[in-house]
């Protein structure tokens, strides 16, 4: 009898334990954020909810700055900007960012950094970063790297949350998130944030700063077949080195306001027919005063004189408005071992100069007559399961660019072939060949070299090979990539030009991670790359990061490396950006965190120039600082 009782007790204990344990495992599985990954669209790195928490990533740039084959810099306006390895670009068109289904780059220069680069992660569930061409799957703008930001699910949150941080230099941020789900299947999530930006540097005995404020509003309203997303952000800040010939303007400010509305609807029982409509409005204002002899280097307004140095206006201001509207329709279907996705996409972009003036001309108006573009695209993807362990993927996309003004209408054919081979549970191979084109933006055309204003699309061809081996709790990966670019659009001191030769870049990266437990992990990454051009940014890099937890504490440490290089007369040293942090969970719903950033004060540096590129200098990208943050869920 006793034995039976004991067995009964044991089984009931196991029973309840298993239900509790199952709930715990259900949560930790959800925190691993693997539910949206799509291996067919490129080589992917996932930043899960668990990793975002443990590593104390508070902004999108905290994640992006450790990405391999990628450099993150501060540009002349004090904004973070992304460049491919070895090169530094002022604005970059080859990175595409999506908040859920919505692509968020600027209608002007295709860059994301002004409004969205420093996106707070308080309302983000996870981030997937793909090395691949996004427009094959989402019918949007073309690019090489793409970052998918998934917001938290209202169904899983069902709560309110306050997040706040303050850094030792005075920067601070406050966020509020609220979400709820209803009986009828609808749910909503609202996110509000404001942030104070503090960044100052000394150059030439003058203080440069990009201090300012940011606001973000995001709303999601969804049920099983509808998703309505709305985003708004404004950023108002000082302009750092600005456009001044001497890189030290007397004063200057930029203000950018972005708004988007995105609606997705799924038709049919299996949700295989998807329609998406969106509109983006971006207002941006810029003003600068520089009263020294040469003034401000606004490329189209520079006067070249035989007798003296080139000069520009002493004061300059502009108010611009960009509107993007997009319609997308896709259908997925299976025929035997083939899975097809086919889609149509139409996008219209307009550019309106509301005001542009200088001290000598109160009505400059447009720099070029190019102010409208409509892109019509059709795309098809087939993934064919040749064998259980071998999937072949093929994509094609036709883009037709209908432009006003002197830029010719053009069409581009984009192609991709690839294979995913998983011969055993431990081995995986993936390879893609991609051919894509990045069209010139309004910004490129505005600032084009006056003698050759008809810029052509940049042609990218790249192939990649990735191999992954797992054994127990270890995972080891190697990825090789080869990129060649024709007609690269480059910002020369006299404006944008198409480079007349093929640029090539090659890279190899090694990645190793080992999980000690479900909570403790070490991750190592190293890459090296070559570029056929003069190098003006890091070409090698890597990181070591360790994250873990014990009882009510979570902790991490990481060191991000970028190699040094020489450019002109400058010697840029190696960078070792080391941070460490700890989180104390007072309860399940309340936690405090402390984080030390750039402890060794060996930040990456970015290059700047004065006098149309006759003199170069470098400034640190990040300060050494301590951040204290709090998270409260209720």
């Amino acid at each position, binding site marked *: 009898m006793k034995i039976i009782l004991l067995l009964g007790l044991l*089984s*009931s*204990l*196991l*029973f*309840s334990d*298993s*239900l509790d*344990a*199952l*709930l715990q*495992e*259900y*949560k930790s*599985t*959800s925190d*691993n954020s*693997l*539910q949206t*990954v799509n*291996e067919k669209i490129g080589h992917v790195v996932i930043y899960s*909810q668990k990793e975002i928490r443990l590593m104390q990533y508070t902004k999108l740039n905290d994640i992006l700055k450790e990405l391999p084959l990628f450099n993150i810099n501060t540009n002349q306006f004090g904004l973070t900007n992304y460049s491919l390895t070895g090169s530094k670009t002022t604005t970059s068109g080859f990175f595409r960012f999506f908040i859920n289904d919505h692509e968020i780059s600027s209608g002007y220069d295709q860059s994301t950094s002004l409004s969205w680069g420093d996106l707070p992660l308080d309302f983000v569930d996870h981030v997937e970063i793909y090395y691949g061409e996004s427009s094959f799957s989402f019918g949007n703008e073309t690019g090489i790297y793409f970052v998918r930001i998934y917001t*938290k*699910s209202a*169904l*899983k*949150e*069902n*709560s309110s949350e306050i997040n706040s941080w303050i850094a030792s230099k005075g920067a601070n941020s406050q966020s509020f998130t609220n979400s709820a*789900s*209803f*009986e*009828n*299947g609808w749910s909503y999530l609202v996110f509000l944030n404001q942030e104070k930006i503090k960044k100052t540097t000394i150059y030439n005995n003058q203080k440069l700063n990009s201090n300012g404020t940011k606001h973000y509003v995001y709303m999601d309203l969804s*049920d*099983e077949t509808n998703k309505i997303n709305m985003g708004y952000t404004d950023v108002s800040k000082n302009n750092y080195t600005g456009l001044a010939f001497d890189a030290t303007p007397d004063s200057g400010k930029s203000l950018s306001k972005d708004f988007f509305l995105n609606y997705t609807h799924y038709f049919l*029982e*299996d949700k295989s027919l998807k329609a998406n409509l969106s509109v983006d409005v971006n207002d941006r204002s810029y003003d600068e005063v520089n009263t020294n002899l040469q003034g401000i280097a606004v490329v189209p307004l520079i006067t070249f004189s035989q007798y003296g140095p080139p000069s520009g206006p002493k004061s300059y201001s502009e108010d611009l408005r960009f509107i993007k509207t997009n319609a997308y329709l896709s259908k997925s279907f299976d025929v035997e071992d083939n899975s097809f996705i086919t889609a149509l996409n139409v996008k219209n972009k307009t550019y309106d100069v509301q005001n542009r003036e200088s001290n000598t001309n109160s009505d400059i108006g447009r720099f070029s007559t190019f102010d409208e573009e409509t892109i019509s695209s059709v795309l098809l993807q087939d993934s064919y399961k040749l064998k259980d362990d071998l*999937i072949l993927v093929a994509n094609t996309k036709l883009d037709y660019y209908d432009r006003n003004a002197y830029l010719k209408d053009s069409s581009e054919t984009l192609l991709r072939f690839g294979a*995913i081979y*998983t011969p055993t*549970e*431990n*081995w*995986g191979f*993936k390879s893609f060949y991609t051919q894509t084109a990045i069209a010139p933006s309004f910004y490129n055309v505005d600032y084009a070299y006056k003698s050759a204003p008809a810029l052509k699309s940049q042609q990218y061809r790249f192939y990649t090979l990735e191999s*992954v*081996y*797992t054994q*127990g*709790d*270890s*995972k080891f990966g190697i990825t090789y990539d080869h990129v060649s670019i024709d007609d690269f659009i480059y910002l020369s001191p006299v404006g944008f030009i198409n480079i007349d030769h093929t640029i090539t870049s090659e890279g190899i990266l090694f990645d190793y991670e080992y*999980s000690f437990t*479900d909570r403790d992990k070490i991750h190592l990454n190293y890459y090296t790359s070559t570029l056929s051009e003069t190098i003006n940014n890091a070409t090698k890099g890597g990181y070591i990061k360790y994250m873990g937890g014990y009882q009510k504490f979570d902790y991490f440490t990481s060191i991000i490396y970028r190699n040094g290089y020489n450019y002109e007369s400058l010697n840029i040293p190696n960078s070792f950006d080391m941070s460490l942090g700890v989180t104390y969970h007072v309860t*399940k*719903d309340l936690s405090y965190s402390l984080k030390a950033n750039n402890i060794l004060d060996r930040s990456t540096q970015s290059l700047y120039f004065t006098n149309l590129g006759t003199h170069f200098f470098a400034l640190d990208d990040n300060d050494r600082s301590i951040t204290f943050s709090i998270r409260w*869920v209720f």
Partner: protein
Amino acid sequence: MRVLIILITLLSFLSSENYTFLVQPYSKEVELEAKIIAEIATASLHGKIKLFIPHITVMEEKVYSKYFTLSPKCEAANFVFVNKNLENETLCDNANRLFFTNNYRKLLSDDKYFGALFWNKSRPNIVFIQKRLEKREIELPKTFDQFVENF
């Protein structure tokens, strides 16, 4: 059945989390949901469980069939798990079957349901309503007490 669930759960703890590429549709969350529902169903009912999920997806069908005998019709089932929004609710309704939902508000407003598995503050929760358990003469193991609420 219970032993089987425990064994599968223990085995899944032992096996490594690592994967090379996630080529197949990711089913682990559905898998865990299915295990939890299986625990609840076996604790609530005696005898063989015939589960009905309205508008069941292909993946759910594949996963849930590992733990349950699935019934294509509500009438033939003795356990109904409603995890989607049903526009014109046409579920069969009588004393011969138990109804469980994934929507807490639905649980509060509709006394057809005896419990719910839902998310709150990014954590999964289970709630059973005491009165409805009594009405249906369901005796849950003592260890389920933490999930039972008296409204």
